[in-house]
């Protein structure tokens, strides 16, 4: 079993605390993505799991075994680095087999493993090349191969795709998820911890995603939950593109929010979602996709002035000023008719199912309870 457990994991750099006692369980065979803005300690966490960074406090267990003081080579992990970190003086073949040669495995076994891995990643024509003769995508595949050949319990990926161009990144994304599925089907333990700052990578690749900020875990959930039920304003703002709109306001009687001098009625159904006893200062969060153009003013609409329009083809991005705040609304091209706007004033109607209310002090989502 290759379950990875982090318990109260801490890391201090001098007097600065980078990781604040995080707890995380990655199940056997799970693809876990650590995501967050730069400086959120996601890479530090990964490096602590790898053993490249000493931990200040807490426990790391791999397959139930405490590995706090084990050197990286004995932890049953392998790692893919952001800039590939191939050994520049060794040919691809030697790069792949370095770990096996260190362990003095028999030559036939090394040969067989190299053939297997290079076949899997389609790098067999490159075996006799030096790393400097490889393109970025090829080098990355070799780096993955080098990790694969060890048959580790846990794979660690440190922003492996960030040096590739957009097209290659998309294809490598699919390749890595495919590989993960294939390994699982072959019965090889394939627990993955994947660090990225790119939410598209996180959403498309992860079985579960761990959103981090300033050395704290903000939420751990599958992509769907993360998008539909963000636990706090940070996660809500971080996941989804364009970013969720936030409006500061006051909750009145569980069904109405007063924001930017307007009152939005959210309906009785919404009231049931609120945590009991929450009222007062809130932040209203609504994704651009959950705003619709309304024909006329009704109880549930917000009036705003269209400031800027981006035509994207199948949809239109509207930048709407509501009081001092600017919201983005995404409407289908078919539903949008520029000529119907009078003096650029518009009514936007939020879909109550897509509305979130956050406690303004703690940032916590108070509209999750059902």
């Amino acid at each position, binding site marked *: 079993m290759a379950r990875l457990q982090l318990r109260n994991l801490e890391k201090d750099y001098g007097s600065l605390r980078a990781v604040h006692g995080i707890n995380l369980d990655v199940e056997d065979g799970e693809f876990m993505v650590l995501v967050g803005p730069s400086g959120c300690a996601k890479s530090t966490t990964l490096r602590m799991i*790898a*053993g*490249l960074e000493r931990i200040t406090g807490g426990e790391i267990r791999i397959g139930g075994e405490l590995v706090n003081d084990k*050197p*990286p*080579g*004995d932890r049953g*992990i*392998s*790692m893919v*680095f*952001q*800039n590939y*970190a*191939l*050994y*520049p*003086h060794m040919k691809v073949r030697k790069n792949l087999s*370095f*770990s096996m040669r*260190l*362990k003095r495995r028999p030559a036939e076994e090394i040969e067989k493993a190299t053939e297997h891995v290079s076949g899997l990643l389609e790098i067999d024509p490159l075996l006799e090349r030096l790393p400097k003769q490889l393109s970025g995508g090829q080098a990355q595949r070799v780096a993955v191969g*080098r990790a694969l050949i*060890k048959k580790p319990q846990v794979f660690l990926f440190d922003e492996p795709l960030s040096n590739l161009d957009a097209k290659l990144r998309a294809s490598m994304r699919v390749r890595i998820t495919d590989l993960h599925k294939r390994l699982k089907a072959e019965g090889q333990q394939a627990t993955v911890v994947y660090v990225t700052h790119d939410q598209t990578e996180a959403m498309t690749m992860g079985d579960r995603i761990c959103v981090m900020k300033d050395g704290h875990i903000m939420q751990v959930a599958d992509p769907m939950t993360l998008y539909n039920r963000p636990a706090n304003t940070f996660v809500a703002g971080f996941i989804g593109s364009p970013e969720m709109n936030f409006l500061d306001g006051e909750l009145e009687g569980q069904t109405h929010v007063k924001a930017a001098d307007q009152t939005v009625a959210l309906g009785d159904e919404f009231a049931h979602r609120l945590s009991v006893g929450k009222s007062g200062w809130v932040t209203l969060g609504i994704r651009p996709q959950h705003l619709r153009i309304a024909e006329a003013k009704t109880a549930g609409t917000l009036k705003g002035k269209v400031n800027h329009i981006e035509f994207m083809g199948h949809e239109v991005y509207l930048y709407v000023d509501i009081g001092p705040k600017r919201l983005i609304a995404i409407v289908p091209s078919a539903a949008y008719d520029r000529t119907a706007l009078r003096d650029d004033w518009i009514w936007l109607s939020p879909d109550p199912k897509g509305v979130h209310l956050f406690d303004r002090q703690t940032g916590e989502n108070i509209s999750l309870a059902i």
Partner: protein
Amino acid sequence: MTEHVLSHDPSTVGEVAGIRAREHRRHKAGIMLRYLMLAAVGLLMLYPLIWLIGASFKTNSEIFANPGFWPENPTLDGYIKGWQTSTPYSFGTFFLNTLWIVIPKVIGTAISCTAVAYGFARFEFPFKKLLFASLIATLLLPNVVTRIPQYLLFRDLGWLDSFLPLWVPSAFAGDAFFVFMLVQFLRAIPRDMEEAARVDGATTWQTMIFIVVPLLMPALISVCLFQFMWTMNDFLGPLIYISSVDKYPVSLALKLSIDTTEAFEWNRVLAMSVLALTPALAVFFLAQKYFIDGISSGGIKG
């Protein structure tokens, strides 16, 4: 567009061609002048060496009679007699002695300086800053200051008149300059490769031998070359520690023929000087490419 307009006026075309030709001539003249200057200065600096080679084929009397470098009656006398020396040993012995000093010293330097530089560049340990500062301080210290204490130390160890005082300091990374050079080079190399090696299961020493040393190779070659040339040319070290003639390296042996008699044979001294110069020059030209790589580049492109 300009071409088109100009072609309408034949006189302008001719003028332009004239200006171009004049500029071309001026450019060529400039280049020739520059190279002439460089060649002249180069010759001026090389002249003593050229004269040395010429004079080594002259007879002793001609050296003082003829100031030019071309020998009137070329003779190998200086080489033949110089090689035999006035001692029971030939110059062959002295060359072997030099090699016997140089080779262990170069190997010791390469190994010890790599290990020490790796330690300073990659590891955190108590008093690291203080230790590194004292290393740099020894760089600034004039060599002469430590000569006497070192001599006393080696005397007490009973190492006088052996090669040990010449070998041992280098085998313990005594040459701060080389350590400093390698540390700077290592700092420019990203750590990722070493971390990848550790994840692959390499120990610290394995990482150093299989990953760091190959990456460090250009700098390491420069270190070896420097050490080779400096040791070949070192006069003071052997002079202080080595007293028996059978252990003399070339640098001391050259002086032998000078102080034994009053009227010494200059052509022999010069001939042996030419021979003494050859290995260092040969090694330098053979390894010039690596040498320049090692001292000029800050490391390897990530």
